[in-house]
């Protein structure tokens, strides 16, 4: 029995080796620890790139497809008629939205998730010593730009929103809503900083220079800043920022051919998002292009241009042919947004998802100039409107009256930018009536538009509700009026 005893003496004593070391484990092999993300340029860049990837690869992306700012705003406004029976989309469409609308809460959550990612990049880069100064500036610039970008949509969709500027959940979990002015102050500050940090060139995901305009640069920050000033009514600054890009020379020109505007090679693009990984098409293409009658069960492929928008195109407008798709089934012809042509049948990548483009800068400047009284002649609103009209194959406008010129600008915005990133919805809400300063354009347009959609309009509908789930988990949030 001697041999057993030895085994036992040893095992008996082994229990004294109970030790701290035994229960220490490293990061799992399948993940990367936070230190290893922010100790080199390429991994740190990957952390920012995830935001673009998420926007392009996620079904619940705010950028494209069924839960996007573009599509949901388009049905809320007067751009699309939907055939969907999806209750949440239907309620948005009829401007009868309730506070438990999951489409609205998904959009909110996606935007804040990306703000969180941007904040962790800012914190990770700040704490890191292993990143080159060029990449440091670039990533800080992109993160600030992105944060401003998402807040600019949140504040327009929801009004007052919580201003989350760090990744610390302890502070953020009980954040209250910040005043709209404070949110804008932060947006302007972030964009100005981004302008200082970013450069004029474009970078690939691997930080090499590229002609693809798939990561934001200084011009992207400037373009967004121009829009923000316009929304704030700071006409002089809006004009100045837009001019910086319009006057930048051959880098940015209005694509002479309308069919090239949304291509990967577009010279009009200031910032585009590249379809993620190997997918050679945008989800907006898949979402809008009809191959048969609009579907009723899903929100995908269930939308056509509203009669009102379709009729707004002038007969000679080349944009109708270039950007509006159609399909005839039996006796019915359906017209749908056709800016993106590629769908699941695409074999190679030809289109990127447009986010910021030069045409909008012309229209921003036109409006800013008009509001400053620069109506006609050199350096005027009409000059900028005509730049857009000429490219669309239309004649120059000869209007002179301020109301007419403003009406023309609004119409050009509507036709040029339809179903892109909620422009129409935001324009209706922010623009004052051209004849009665106490009303907004939404007050004038939406009652009839909502009725046409089978719903009814009330002023509170201009803002979407703070999601019910957010109210339930953050006791300091309050609701927009009309939703209680």
């Amino acid at each position: 029995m001697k041999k057993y005893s030895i085994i036992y003496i040893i095992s008996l004593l082994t229990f004294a080796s109970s030790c701290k070391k035994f229960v220490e484990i490293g990061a799992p092999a399948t993940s990367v620890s936070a230190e290893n993300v922010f100790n080199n340029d390429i991994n740190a860049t990957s952390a920012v790139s995830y935001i673009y990837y998420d926007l392009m690869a996620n079904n619940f992306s705010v950028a494209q497809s069924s839960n996007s700012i573009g599509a949901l705003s388009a049905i809320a406004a007067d751009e699309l008629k939907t055939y969907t029976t999806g209750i949440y989309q239907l309620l948005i469409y009829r401007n009868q939205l309730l506070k438990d609308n999951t489409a609205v809460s998904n959009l909110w959550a996606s935007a804040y998730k990306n703000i969180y990612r941007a904040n962790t990049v800012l914190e990770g880069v700040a704490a890191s010593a292993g990143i080159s100064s060029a990449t440091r500036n670039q990533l800080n610039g992109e993160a600030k730009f992105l944060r401003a970008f998402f807040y600019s949509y949140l504040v327009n969709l929801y009004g007052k929103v919580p201003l989350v500027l760090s990744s610390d959940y302890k502070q953020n979990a009980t954040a209250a809503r910040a005043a709209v002015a404070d949110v804008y102050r932060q947006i302007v500050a972030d964009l100005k900083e981004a302008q200082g940090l970013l450069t004029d060139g474009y970078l690939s995901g691997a930080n090499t220079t590229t002609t693809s305009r798939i990561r934001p640069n200084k011009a992207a920050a400037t373009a967004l800043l121009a829009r923000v000033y316009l929304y704030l009514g700071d006409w002089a600054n809006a004009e100045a920022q837009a001019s910086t890009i319009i006057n930048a020379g051959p880098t940015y020109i209005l694509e002479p051919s309308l069919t090239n505007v949304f291509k990967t090679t577009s010279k009009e693009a200031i910032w585009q998002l590249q379809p993620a990984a190997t997918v050679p098409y945008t989800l907006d293409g898949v979402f809008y292009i009809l191959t048969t009658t609009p579907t009723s069960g899903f929100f995908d492929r269930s939308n056509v241009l509203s009669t009102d928008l379709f009729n707004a195109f002038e007969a000679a407008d080349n944009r109708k042919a270039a950007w509006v798709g159609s399909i005839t089934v039996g006796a019915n012809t359906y017209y749908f947004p056709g800016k993106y042509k590629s769908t699941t049948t695409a074999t190679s990548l030809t289109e990127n998802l447009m986010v910021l483009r030069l045409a909008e800068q012309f229209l921003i400047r036109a409006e800013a100039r008009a509001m400053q009284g620069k109506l006609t002649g050199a350096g005027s609103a009409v000059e900028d409107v005509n730049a857009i009209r000429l490219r669309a194959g239309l004649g120059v406008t000869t209007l002179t009256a301020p109301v007419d010129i403003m009406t023309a600008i609004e119409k050009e915005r509507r036709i040029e930018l339809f179903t892109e990133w909620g422009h129409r919805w935001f324009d209706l809400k922010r623009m004052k009536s051209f004849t009665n300063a106490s009303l907004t354009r939404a007050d004038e347009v939406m009652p009839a538009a909502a009725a046409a959609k089978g719903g009814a309009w009330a002023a509170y509908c201009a803002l979407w509700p703070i999601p019910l789930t957010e109210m339930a988990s953050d006791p300091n949030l309050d609701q927009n009026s009309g939703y209680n």
Partner: protein
Amino acid sequence: MHLKALCKPLLLPNANRGILTKTLLIMKFTAILLLAAALQVSAKSYSQQITLSVKDVPLEQVFKAIQSQTGYSFVYNNRLMKGTKNVSLQVDKTSIEEVLQICFKSQPLTYTVIDKTIVVKPREVIKPDEAAVAPAPPPIDVSGKIVNEKGEPAAGVSVSVKGTNKATATDAGGNFLLSGIDSKAVLVISGANIETLETSINGRTTLDVTVRQKLSELTEVVVNKGYYTESKALSTGSIGTVTAKTIQQQPVSNPLAALVGRIAGLDVTQQSGVAGANFTIRIRGTNSVRGNLANSGNANDPLVLVDGIPFLSSPTNVNTTGNGIRSLSPLNALDPSDIQSIEVLKDADATAIYGSRGSNGIILITTKRGRAGKTQFNMNLSSGIGGIARKADVLNGPEYLAMRHQAIKNAGTPYNAGIYDFDLNQFDTTTFYDWQKILIGGTARYNNAQLSLSGGTENNRFTASLGYLKQTSVYPTSAADQRVNTQLAFDHTSSDKRFKANLTMTMGVENNNMPTEDLVDWALTLPPVYFPLKNDNGSYKWFAPFPGLFVNPLARLTRTSDSKTSVLTANGVFGYDIIESLTVKTLVGYNRTDYTGVTLVPSTYYEPGTVGTFIRSNNTLNTNNNTWNMEPQISYTRILGPGSISALLGATFQQTVQNAYGIYAYNFSNDNLIGNPANAPLVQAGTTNLVYKYNALFGRLNYNIADKYILNLTARRDGSSRFGPGKQFGNFGAAGAAWIFSEEKFVKQHLRFLNFGKLRASYGVTGNDQIGDYNYLTTYYATSLPYGTPPSYGGNGVLNPERLANPDLAWETNKKLDLALELGLFKNRVSVSATWFRNRTSNQLVNYPLPAITGFSSILLNSPAVVQNTGIELELSTVNIKTTAFSWSTSTNLTIPRNKLVSFDNLASSPYATAYVVGQPLTVQTVFDFAGVDPKTGANTWRNAAGTIVPAKTLTLTDRAKYVNAGKEFYGGINNNFTWKGLSLDIFLQFVKQVGRSTNVSAFQPFIGTWGWIVNEPTKLYERSWKQSGDITNYHAFVSDPLQSTAVTPSVINSSYDPNYYADNSFIRIKNIALSYTLPQPWVQKARMQNLRIYMQAQNLFTFSNYMGLDPENQSTSLPPLRIITAGIQATF
């Protein structure tokens, strides 16, 4: 503390000393104290030669000097040192042997050197008078036969010679033979079901003994507490046991199913009636407020150990991403017939020795072991059928049409005409379908076979078994769940009885291709007016006018899932008695669970023409879970003062590695290619690798005075890798005490009817680390999204923060208090036990819901909440009638659980503000104050927080003012056993008093809890609904479209906030009936058999309940546990 300090060098042949030194400083483990007084172990190293000069010093001091020079360690009992003489010694480079001889020369001690350990023991002194006694009479051989009161042979009864190790067991004929024993010896005859009897041989060589069958199990039953066993009568803890007999009389494939209703305080719910499905197990309530979410671990699951090895109890297929994939229980790979007993440890006394792992209680499964004697071959074959035991009462065709016409009428102007009334316009309204019959009304087949072999000698015993089980489903498919099990167990005892080894290996292989699609939802909700599901040519039919809107449930079955699970458990327990009453033991075990699941979605799954949703796919998931553990232990027993003390000290090392990899391949060009992911144009892959390490020191100290006063102390220091640096270790412990007052003289004299009486109490603290791994660590992961394979952007990879990490995570603690009274009356014909318990869980690890503005929907943290579970458990066993031929006995258990959120700091400002209420159970649902259905309009009306009836649209969450507690009020079971000669009948009733959803929301309410749509509804709902002006009811008018629906019930009223959705879902179920007949011995023996039994068994026979859905137990849209009726034959050769 010598153990701690002196073992260091031994552990360090070439390891890193710095780390270990630090480590040892950390180990201030109080349990070491338990043994330090009685035992000292010392060691040091490096030389074989001793140079020493001492004068008149205690022997211990010399030992220390020797071990410091040589590395030899001494093992001895402190007590031995009391009688030793001081030693004087002067040696120079002398061998250890010589030095030891000098030291021990005049001591009352001797020693044995075992490698580098010197075991010191008392010198066996042969007393002169004993030595001089005349030689003992020559040993004799004794044979005999043991029979019970009925004269039937008592097989398997142990016959041992008192005071020696000699023992044997009777064979099937009750015969035994003992050779070479003292002619004056006393034989002790004992067995699990008989009363122990002692008889003197007095020179006889043959003797016949009649034994009495035991009336109650209370006194003799030995309960397993994992690290140690003890007599149930002397136990200080709360333990429930289910024995092999109870398990085997139930035709169930999963051992957990055999526990339903059997043990007080244990709540087991089968999640689905599909073979192989997982179970929810709760021991004494829900302790943790976090649910079983993916990143939170299985917060409320008990620890399951099979022969001491932690067994994976969470579903094998946790990491699947596909839809509709059911959770599979890994325990399904264990054959219930291989199980000897299942012990459920409930209170702190029983569980604290498991430390953190014992927080939610423990389920100990002990497998069968071989018995010495003639080799036995056992065969058990059974076969049966299964089906749905209870159909839900839903509308038939005419009733449905009446409801629909009413709903359309209520709508007034039709909304989206054509969309919400197509059932009336476009379906054939004269043909009706009974979907429950079509989709879930089939007959499942059940076939089971087991063969086993056991036998051996006293020193070498073995058992081997082989089992096969096949079950099919009630769905219209031929899919089956098949399982093969093998078990091998071998027990060895050395000839001197000092060394014991128990080796066990079990292997279960399960192949389950049951559909992952549960058709219950459709069986309940598809309108009885529909379209046929198949064309004449056998292809699937769809509803053309609305592509994509209607489901064809049969087509859903073409999505196949093939799950293969194999579970291997191997373990060995090696024990050695170093010196008398000092035993060292080591358990080494390994458990491996492998799962491979392949889910294929062919084109037939989809409706043709719904382009975009049409994706052929192959989802292959492989997971393997490897756990090894090692538990060295040392135990010691001795008489101390008026009582006996036993001590146990041990350590646990456990590592669990979970690896999973999955491949999702999709967009195959045709159905023939989907078997191989390589054929797919688009493939996503992912792996997970989780490491869990756990380490602990534990100890137990038990003091027993005359089997009357018993004190049991247990303690454990635990470390878990699930917490960050500095937070890994926690201390847990418990004290239990019992007073067996029936041993007191006054009871014996004055309360003669009371043959057993015990009061016991225990209090202790256990912990809980059942959270996911790595939650303290910030990591990044390149999650692959549906449209982004591989995850990259602009030519570079992407990285996403995986979680909100919390480096402050620390142990959740569960304080358990238990008080119990156990009585045995009238010679144990009546035994009663009543237990009151209180578990308080604090420092709760919770998945704190966060607003999305934080970037995540939750974070795991220690919350200041205290959750309390209290309860009363009552058990009553009675022998109602007992005659020679007939007996009737009843056993009943009842549990009355109560759950309460005791406190929650700053609840109002926390994200839980609307979820929980202090003073209410965790299951509380705060609901709106329902003001009835307006008799004029049929719409629901509501009161706000102030009590005023307001438009429903204006209600906010804060207007919810009423509470509904959905949960169990009490539950239990009653078993009646009748035997008459060879016939035995068991009838087991399960009962539950509970409040739950009146209907299943997801099944019956398509839109925010309203009805009247193109969906079938329970008949009761239809009958009670408002139909015309003046109707007084609580059930609103039928609605048929979303806008109408929002008018009736605004969407803020999530149906769970509506008090009308809760109802009494209590039920009584005839859970099991088992009838068996054991053929009389003479017949059996003629057939050269030892035993022959035929039986019929039925499970889930009838359920009585007001529940409107299918099964009041799982209250979900899963298939209810099936009614299974089997017949079988069992033969022993």
